[in-house]
């Protein structure tokens, strides 16, 4: 069975919950068991927000340090903060305006999602832009098409929102060179 442990981190208001549930729902659509852990309450007010997402046969909702396969960081500062969760050959997909090197064998792909979201006139869409970037690397347990299907399912009653969401996801997938 596919097994993947992910962390999605950012700050309150960036829509971390939205993309972690999107991935969790995609996992269910693929017939895979999933367990996640979310941040609510005080920390959501501009503080560090982190979602743990475990696809496969797991019982604990938390990822242990050194066990995560991937880290999706919506703030560049969170890479340093949460990279210790990654296993030695894990990957990072980060929202970074100026790329910086990471030590070790970690593989990092970056995207300037703030700039792209602003260009799209949708500053709320940073989360989907970065998710798009992460999907484009092929390291996730699911594909861009599968996530698109979940989005369509989730937002079918809100066509305007859906269109903006798909635009953001695609911008993350295509709008940048691979690094």
């Amino acid at each position: 069975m596919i097994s993947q442990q992910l962390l999605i981190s950012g700050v309150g208001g960036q829509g971390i919950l939205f993309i972690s549930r999107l991935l969790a729902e995609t996992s269910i659509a693929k017939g895979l068991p999933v367990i996640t852990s979310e941040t609510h309450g005080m920390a959501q007010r501009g503080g560090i927000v982190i979602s743990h997402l475990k696809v496969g046969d797991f019982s604990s909702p938390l990822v242990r340090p050194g066990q995560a396969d991937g880290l999706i960081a919506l703030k560049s500062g969170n890479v340093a903060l949460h990279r210790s969760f990654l296993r030695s050959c894990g990957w990072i997909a980060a929202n970074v305006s100026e790329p910086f090197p990471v030590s070790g064998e970690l593989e990092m792909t970056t995207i300037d999602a703030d700039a792209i979201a602003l260009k799209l006139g949708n500053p709320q869409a940073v989360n989907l832009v970065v998710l798009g970037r992460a999907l484009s690397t092929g390291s996730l347990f699911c594909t861009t098409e599968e996530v698109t299907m979940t989005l369509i399912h989730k937002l079918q009653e809100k066509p305007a929102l859906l269109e903006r969401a798909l635009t953001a996801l695609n911008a993350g997938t295509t709008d940048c060179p691979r690094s």
Partner: protein
Amino acid sequence: MLENKPTLMQGNEAMARGMVENGCVVAASYPGTPASEILSSIETWGKTEGVTMHVEWAVNEKVAFEIAYAASQSGLRAVTAMKQVGLNVASDPLMSAAYLGTVGGFVIISADDPGPHSSQTEQDSRLMAMQAKLPVLDPSSPSEARELVGCALRMSEEFELPVMLRPTTRVCHACQDITPVPVQHLERKAVFCKDPQRWAATPKFRYELHVELNRKLSRIAAYAPTAPRRLNPSTMSRRAVVASGVSAAHASEVVSISGLQDAFVFYQILQPYPLHSDFVEEIRTAYDEVLVLEETTGVIEMQLRDFLRVQGKLSGAVPEAGELLPEMIERILCEFAGRAVADLSEAAPVGGRRPTLCPGCPHRASFYAIKKAAPQGIYPSDIGCYTLGVNLGAVDTVLCMGAAIGQAAGFYQAYRVSGQQRDIVATVGDSTFFHAGIPPLIDAVVQGARFVLVILDNTTTAMTGNQPTPAQGTPSGKAVDIASVVAGCGVEFCRSADPLDLPAFTSLIKEALAFSCKQGVAVVIAKSPCLVDKRIRHAKRPQPLVDSTCTGCKQCTDQFECPALVFDEVSRKVMVDIMNCSGCGVCLDVCPLKAIKLGEGQP
């Protein structure tokens, strides 16, 4: 419609689903992290399934408890949900209801917050259950929580007593794939059978009820459906690990991943109190060494009553404070099994940005005005988003719900008896005011205390996800107006204003201070909506720009601390972060040099 298809459910949604599936028709709660989503999900599931229910956000947890309890007394299935400190508020009816018992199934969900992540304390509700002499169930995952809801309702009816379900943050805010089952429509009619000897028992009968309660508890300690589960039945060992709640989920994953299946016998406890008597006996006779993993207090360990062979929180083998994280459990289990502790990666990091009020939050303007008007003041405050005013130096105390008002009066009296007077400006949110602020306000008026109370009225319970307050009313009831309540408490100075108009609001606070110094309590209602409240359409406002006259004095970043104002180390000037700025315009009045100006109308 949802039947037989796995659906992603948050723990709170899963418990709500369990309630609706098992025919619960009355639910009352007061919002508090991590329990807030339970009630709204009950409402949603009830609507989807076409169940007629009474679902209410009560004014506080005590009232919520009483509403649900009366439904149970009338034979209906009912639930009340709250966070652990909310249970303190509801502890009065809790203790008494244990003696009187129930008719319809009655479940109290009290969500604990080891960490703590969003609470004043790490208290363990299971101890409250012990104190009340009520059974408590401790789920390890959202899907188990849903199952135990049904079990708790049946138990409550079989033994005629309230049953507590104690999830923790990692159960409430975990999400899992769960397959819904069809809803039982019980179609019960409310029937309250008068029985004053029971329902209005005098102390003499209370004694008999207590004896009866003890009898029920000993039967519950033999109740099969909630008996401890042995997770590795084929293992033979003189060592045992006993775990409950999410600690059991962490441990079971560590056991299988680290290959510890044969190192010890592994039990999961579903009912930490009363612990099953056969199990206590088995632990006593079958094992030489026992390790207990539980959050947050050693409730199970305590009942095993053998400190020579049983290790846990009380023995010092497991930390007594903080969340029991899976990496700690891994280390403790390896040590217990006599295995070399794997070279574990560094502990999970802490740090990063501290939480702060949203950019453009009206509370920030209120706090700034309070500091300006009473720079030497004492600032008692309360529980809500505005607790974050501590970053601004405008919050000196946070004790518990409603305490700002009681403490403000207390500070006044403490200074008065020693022949002194200080400016005192208390802040309390609108929802918190209704919850626990009214009795202390009456007390302050009656005792002649002198202080200013600023009620931060953003017409919502913001911190927990924008639940309504009594000031909004309900479809079947009426709205209760804050100013009328304040006047009804006997306060003679009560004025409202919008804090986003900073100069006018600051003068109003000064006026209130002048009144309070001479005459008594003065109340200012700071009226301005919460920015994240989706019910309110916020007009798009232009974002300001900082011009070249900014000297980098940092007044706006340090004293006002809007996260959308960023000090640029290169230019040594402040810039507006257009990803974050809400365009509230308050900073225009904060800059002493007027270097922040209204920009061109970008969104």
